């Protein structure tokens, strides 16, 4: 039997954690588990007014997304137009009205395409205790993390510095065979400080440090990206699932990364 606790604040929600507890975001993954009798969940904690954490706001060169902001919220906001293609890649319209930013950060493989984008955009998380943490750190420890996400702050990229690509078998709304997000700041036409993140290539979204290093100082043409394409396999160890084998994912990753970097595959 699953019990429900309804609370008023994020801090109250965090205080209600414990073994078997899950926090309700949009419910797109949690309620699926409940419907199918997921024995890991015995207690659901939900916020009575999640809208209080559903805002999108600008903070200088960054943007802040509330943990309960939905993909539909993102699509309605011109401030985060650079994330529209990412939000549109998450489910159909009904899913996008429900799926939240916070839920996406916790989504297991092969879900969490928005988290891939946020990881590439140097996301920092404000937690329920007021502290801030790097998204990579949360992704590495999220199974044991007791605090909850209040909001996510990400870089606002300029021009075509940000690119995103999602590969699915079921068009148009399937789960990811893989997804790639790239933030490619340039100085004098050369890449400087690139961040590349992959989805569906590990239990959580992951960065590709070898690829990033290979792109440093490179130009965005075939010659410039060759070394990065050759090094992709060093950064990835994808699991098998019903959509694709890990071997297949690793084989096709350079192909899709090439399309993304050359501007041929952005969505």
């Amino acid at each position, binding site marked *: *039997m699953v019990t429900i606790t309804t609370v008023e604040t994020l801090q109250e929600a965090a205080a209600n954690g414990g073994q078997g507890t899950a926090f309700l975001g949009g419910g797109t993954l949690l*309620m699926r588990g409940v*419907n*199918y009798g997921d024995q890991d969940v015995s207690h659901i904690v939900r916020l009575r007014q999640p809208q209080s954490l559903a805002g999108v706001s600008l903070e200088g060169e960054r943007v802040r997304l509330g943990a309960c902001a939905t993909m539909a919220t993102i699509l309605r906001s011109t401030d985060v137009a650079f994330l529209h293609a990412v939000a549109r890649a998450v*489910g*159909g*319209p*009904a899913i996008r009205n429900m799926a939240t930013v916070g839920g996406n950060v916790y989504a297991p493989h092969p879900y969490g395409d928005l988290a891939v984008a946020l990881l590439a955009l140097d996301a920092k998380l404000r937690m329920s205790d007021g502290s801030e943490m790097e998204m990579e750190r949360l992704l590495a420890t999220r199974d044991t993390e007791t605090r909850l996400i209040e909001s996510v702050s990400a870089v606002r990229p300029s021009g075509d510095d940000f690119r995103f690509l999602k590969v699915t078998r079921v068009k148009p709304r399937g789960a990811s065979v893989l997804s790639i997000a790239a933030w490619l700041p340039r100085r004098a036409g050369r890449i400087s400080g690139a961040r590349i993140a992959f989805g569906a290539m590990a239990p959580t979204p992951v960065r590709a440090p070898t690829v990033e290093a290979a792109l440093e100082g490179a130009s965005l043409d075939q010659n410039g990206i060759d070394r990065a394409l050759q090094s992709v396999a060093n950064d990835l160890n994808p699991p098998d699932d019903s959509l694709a084998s890990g071997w297949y994912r690793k084989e096709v990753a350079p192909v899709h990364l090439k399309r993304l970097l050359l501007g041929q595959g952005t969505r």
Partner: protein
Amino acid sequence: MSKTPVQFSLNGSPSAVFVDDAQNLLDVLRRGVGDLSPKYGCGQGTCGSCTVLIDGEPHLSCLTLAETVEGRAVETTNGLATGPQLHALQEAFMENFAAQCGYCTPGMLMAAKALLDRTPRPSREEVIEAISGNICRCTGYEPIIDAIMAASGQPTRRTG
């Protein structure tokens, strides 16, 4: 098992039910208030056959925790017709042979209603986008798209 009282508007009329912990909205609609129009398809948010409108926006009722609709407006296919007068979408689905087994139809209708309420004369691409979360395994999608275009007063691909 505890029960939680939930009050919401269903197709414009007030509705009050006691829901079980973790009960989803689809179950409450079908078993709690007897509205059998939203269908249970996959239970995992893939097929769209349980789509209802909550505050005018499409949601998957199988993935909606029932108590979260407290104070909100829920619309189902049962509320489309006005007495004996079918909704324009229902008429268009019949005229364009957009249903065979009918299982996906309520979800398709509600996804289409949300679109037409927001965009009365959508492009074909907007119609395709609006029903992209709904699976049909009988007609194929073209008659459904034609029907939604027709309901918006625009020509379908096969007429003209």
